[in-house]
Structure formats: C-alpha cells, structure tokens
C-alpha cells in the first residue's frame, strides 16, 4: 500500500491542529495516540534532515526519539494519585485534509484506576498560538471531546460528566429542531387535531375519558418518535441517502395527506400507524439538519438517543396543550364543523404550496 492511498485531492490549507486520542480502560491500562502534522513537527523539532524541503519516511524515522521526547515533555496525563507514565509504542503515518501526519501510539501507566483524569497539553503553542489539540477520550464506548488551546490547556474528564456532555447537547438540539421545524410542527398539529376523538364508521366520535385520549396521544407520539428515530439513524449512518429536495417534498405530502385524512378518513384507523409511517419520512428530514456524524457506535447511539428524546420532549410540549384545548370541546359542533375542517383545510393548502415550492427548483442565476 505505502504512499498510494485512494486518490486524494491536494492537501488543504488550514490552521494547525493535532489529534489526540485516549482510550481509558477500567483497569488503568490506558492507550493513546497523537497525530502530529509533519509540517508542525518540522517547525518544532526539525525533520528535514537534508534540507531539501521534502520529508521522507527515513528522515521522519530518524527523529522518532526527538518526537517522543517532545510529546513526553509537553503532554501530561494524570489522575488523582499522580501523573501517568507515557510508554512509547509504535510510529505510523496518516493523512488528514491538510497533509501527512506522524502518528505516535503510546501506552499510559497510571498509579491507580481513577475516576477522573486530567490532560495537560502544551505542544506547539509557543510556536503557534492558533494551534489546537483536538482531544477525544473514549471510556468504554462513551466519547468525550475537548479542544485544548493556550487559553485552555487543561481538561478534566470525569465519570459523571462524560455521558452528560454529549447527550444534553443533543437533547437541546433535538428539541430546537422540532420547535423550529415548521413543517414537522404542522404535521404534528394536523395529526393531533382529532386528538380527543376516535374514528368509528367513518366519523369522528369523541373519546369519553381523558385517560384514554391521553394514552392514545402518547401512542401516536411514541410511534412518530420511534419511526423518525429509526429513519434518522439510517440516514445519519449513510444506510439511507435520499436527496434533500425529495425528502422535503415528501414531508409536505405527509402533511397534506394527514390533513385530507382528517376531513375524509382514508388512512388506517389507528393513528399511531399513520404516525409511524409518515414519521419515517420526517426522520430523513431531521437527518439533513444534523449533518454527517463520525462517531463510534456507542457515542453515536447516545447522541441519537439524546436527540430523539429532545424531539419527544418538544412534541409533548406541543401535543399536551393541544389535547387540553381540544378535549373540552370534543364532539361539539364548534369542533366538528369549525376547528377540525378549517384547520385541516388550511394545513392542506399550506402543505400544497410547500410541495410545489420544494418540488420545483427555484433559484435565480
């Protein structure tokens, strides 16, 4: 294999970064690797032995000792009982967007298994204050990341905090995406307009008891969440990859069909089935907002869990007031002849406009 990797474009220009990965094992036998840009290393320890401007593998090998010393002097990993010892393992090479990096793998022997570890990072800052150390800590599948800088050269990773950082952020992201995704919101509203009713003989009949209505609501919401959680996971991991324009158009279609169903019931009687089926499409829409995610399986699962919980929470925040409003007037003429048809028609109209808008390319050249 050697130097010829898959055809790679010319390396980019970017600010100086190093990539530090630590894998912490519960028994204290930790491992790590640090990717250092050859360009940065050349500034720090000198790599170009013959001064011809090219760094060869032979020249890099000759400096492995110097690189180890440089890292050992400027990287501190420690726990409550004191610093860990860095044990050099092997040296490899890797490619990033801006060129070749030296990969230095090492083991860490720490005094005792600690619940918290501290990382102190001081590479390259004296030469380039814009350098950043991009730290990823993997503790049995739970991933924490941090950016080490001259302003923040230390970071502390402890057991309680690590799960929270990722999941809480994604929770907020999920809630925000539902509340500001007007098409998703509209779909929910349309789906839940008949919330305090059930269908019998082609007509909407009021549900007598609050508890039944509430349980139905939760079933519908959960089905929606499970469906969009599933399709979101498939889209984010790249298993399913549909064009955004198609997905956005289909989302508009789901709203229109749901609105139509409110007026002339034609979809399955159990609302949760509709929620599930259409939820699959909405999940693809969420994925385009999240962007590509490059996490190990456990970290990704946690992130998606947080994201979906956020969406679920936001859904409940929308749905429960809706139910509270429609429940008292369920079965009434105001509802059957007013709110339900008017709301559904308005939603249908809006969805149709969105569909036309999204399905047809618009843009000025």
């Amino acid at each position, binding site marked *: *294999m*050697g*130097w010829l990797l*898959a*055809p*790679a*474009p*010319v390396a*980019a*220009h970017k*600010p100086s*970064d190093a*990539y530090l*990965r630590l894998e912490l094992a519960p028994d204290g036998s930790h491992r790590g690797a640090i*990717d250092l840009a*050859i*360009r940065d290393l050349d*500034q720090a320890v000198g790599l*170009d032995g013959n001064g*011809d*401007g*090219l*760094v*060869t*593998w032979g020249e890099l090998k000759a400096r492995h000792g110097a690189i180890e010393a440089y890292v050992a002097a400027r990287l501190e990993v420690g726990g409550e009982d004191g610093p860990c010892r860095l044990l050099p393992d092997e040296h490899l*090479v*890797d*490619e*990033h*967007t801006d060129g*070749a990096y030296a990969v230095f793998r090492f083991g860490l022997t720490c005094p005792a298994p600690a619940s918290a570890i501290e990382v102190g990072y001081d590479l390259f800052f004296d*030469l*380039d*204050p*814009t*350098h950043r150390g991009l730290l*990823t800590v993997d503790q049995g599948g739970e*991933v924490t*990341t941090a*950016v080490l800088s001259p302003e923040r050269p230390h970071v502390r990773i402890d057991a309680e905090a690590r799960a929270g950082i990722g999941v809480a*952020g994604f929770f907020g*992201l999920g809630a*925000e995406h539902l509340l500001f995704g007007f098409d998703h919101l509209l779909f929910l509203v349309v789906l839940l307009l008949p919330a305090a009713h059930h269908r019998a003989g082609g007509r909407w009949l009021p549900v007598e008891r609050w508890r039944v209505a509430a349980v139905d609501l939760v079933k519908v919401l959960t089905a929606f969440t499970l469906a969009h959680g599933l399709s979101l996971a498939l889209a984010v991991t790249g298993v399913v990859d549909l*064009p*955004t*324009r198609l997905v956005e158009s289909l989302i508009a279609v789901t709203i229109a069909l749901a609105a139509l169903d409110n007026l002339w019931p034609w979809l399955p009687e159990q609302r949760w089935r509709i929620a599930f089926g259409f939820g699959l499409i909405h999940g693809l829409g969420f994925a*385009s*907002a999240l*962007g*590509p995610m*490059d*996490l*190990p399986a456990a*970290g990704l699962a946690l*992130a998606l869990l947080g994201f979906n919980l956020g969406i679920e929470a936001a859904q409940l925040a929308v749905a429960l007031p809706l139910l509270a409003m429609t429940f008292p007037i369920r079965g009434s003429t105001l509802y059957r002849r007013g709110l339900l048809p008017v709301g559904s028609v308005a939603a249908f109209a809006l969805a149709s406009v*969105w569909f036309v808008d999204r399905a047809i390319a*618009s*843009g*000025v*050249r």
Partner: protein
Amino acid sequence: MSDARPAGPFGRARTASRAGMPGLAAAVLLGLITSAAAEPYLPEHDDVVLERLPAADDPRVREARRLARALDRQSPDPEAALEVARRYVDLGRSEADPRFFGLAEGVLAPWLDAPDPPPAIRLERAALRRARHDFDGALADLDAILEVWPKDVQAHLDRAALLEALGDYAAAEQACIRVLRLYPGLVAVACLTSARSLAGLAQPSYDALAAAAAAPADDPTRSWALTILGEIATRLGDMASAERHFREALGSGARDVYLLGAYADLLLDQDRAGEALDLLEGEERADGLLLRRTIAAHRLDDPRLAAWRDAIRGRFAALRQRGAATHLRDEARFALEVEDQPKRALELASRNWALQKGPADASVLLQAALAAGAPEAAAPVLAWLADKRTEDVVLERLRRALDGVSS
C-alpha cells in the same frame, strides 16, 4: 478561509479574513478524526516522500524560517520579531494559508496581549486579530495606532478595508478621505471609490477609479485597484469591462487568491463554468478556490466533482472540530450550490450576515432565502441594502425574484 479583498498595498498589502462564531453545528459534529482521514499506515520505503514542506517551493518561506530560527525567544527583540512577523503575514495572505498567521502570532507572542505595544507591532497585531476573526480587537488596535500615528496611511487603509467588510461604508469613506489627504494617488482613490460604490455612487466611483487607474502606477497597487474596478463593474452589470479589468490585474503576475476568486465568481455568474474551471486549474489548496471549482464541476457534471466535494466536506468538518466556524459564507454557498440544502444554507448565511455585510454575504443569503422559499428571511437584508443604497445587478435580480415570491 473566506477570503476578503486585501487592504490597499501601501508599503505592503495586507489581508482580512472572515470570521464566524462556533455555531450549534460545531457542537454537533464530534469526530474522532477528520472524516477525510484514512487509516494510519506504515510506509514501505525510507525514500517515500511523506510531505512537501512550503519551504521547498518558496524561497520566501525559507528566508522567513531562517530569520525566525535566529530570534531569541527569551529576550525578544521587537525589530527582529517584527521583520519575521511581517513576512509570515504576507505569506499567510498571499497563500491564504492560516498556519503562517499562527507562526506570526508565535513570533509576536510577547506582545499579543500587551495593552500598549509599539505601534508598528500593533499594526501587525491588528492584521492578526482580523485573521483570527476578532474584528473588534482589530479596530481597537487600529484606532490606538492612529492616536499615536495619525498620519499612518497603512493603518487608515487597513481600517477602511475592515469597516467596509463590516458594512460601515460611511466610516470607511472617512478613513479613505484621510488617506487621500495624506497620500493622494491611486491607493487613495481606490480606497474611496470602493466604499462609495457600495453606498449609492457606483457609476461615478467607477469613472473616477478608471481614470485614476489609467495612469501608470506600481504593480501591487495597480493590480489591487483593477480588482476593485472589476468588482464595481460587475455590480454595475458591465461584465465585459469587469472581465477586462480582472484579466489585466491577473496579467501583472502577482499571485492573488482573492482576485482569482472574484474572477471565477464573475464567470460562474455568467454560466461560464468551464472557463472558471480553466482559470482555477491546479488551485486546490485555498478553500475558497476549491469551492468555486466544485461549484463549477457541479454545474458541468464533471467526474472530479465527487472527490472535490468530499474534500470540501472534510475541510469544513476539520474546522468545526476545532471550534472555528470561519467559513460561514463559503459553507452557505457549498450547502446551496453543491449539496442542494437551501434551508441549511439559509441558516449559515444568516449567521454569516450577523458578522459581515458585503455584497457577497448578501448574495448568498438572498439566494438561499429564494431557494428555501423563505422570502421573509431576506427582508432585513433587503432593507439594509436599500438603506445603504447599494447598487448591484445580481442583488437587484434577487430582490425582484423574492418580491415575486412573497407577493
């Protein structure tokens, strides 16, 4: 980096760099390694070349490095440090390579946080602050320099360029008038006409600058003035003249990433994607240029599209990982014109607009609003442009299209 037009080259040209704030997307994208990395490997031979250092191709880099090595970091000498820093800043600008800005910062480290450094060092610090996207800090430094050196033309020019990028055309004009009084000539006229052309005086500005540029002048200044002339002509809709000016500026041979980008945009706007590809042949390092190549490739269905698109995705991901969202405008263009994600493009363009307000920033936002079917998002930008009385045929076309959608 989202390149900005350099300030006037009085003495030496400087650059500005666009900034963005880490957005929510930064929190979302947690990557182990950048998505463009392959697996680590062991090279087979000692002779395998791993990296071609910048010093290999550019004697300026070798010279800067030699001087940097000679610096005594323990007892720093301001003169020597300044000499090295200036070279690194120039390299960073001309190559659009942020690592050089980092090295310049390293050389000026003792003065980076000083409340009152020597004015010459402060001038470089202002340039570095702009590169770091600290616009307020840069303006503060320039204001402080001008209190001590009210006649420093370069400081006025830098200030004018920064204010223009932020959309404060009136203040930029004032700064250019100071330049005119201190050092009348092409530099001053270019500075002044650039600001005025965005504030309702496009045709008179063009005429004045065209007349001034006809006179002989030294190369970096002339090339810079021709770039501005080309941009004003583009905004006036005189594409033939614009192209003539850009070509003439390129002909002077100076390497200018910003100019290449401006000319490429002209070609892309006129649906001459093939010519844009030819113009940018071999230009892949600077993100802004690779972006335009990718847009052109997308329009032509060029087989190289997939590789370039993945490369750009990787670059944006790498920047997000370090918590810097410095390419918001470029990201928005990428989302809109290559990834076909108008909603995301609109969000990025809106965040970009909060930080800088040039015609290019307005353009991407209006295009995204149109494509996303959200004309209401364009309203504040249109109002701002109307208030400034900016004349720009592309923006006017977008405005009419958006009016058609919302009515």
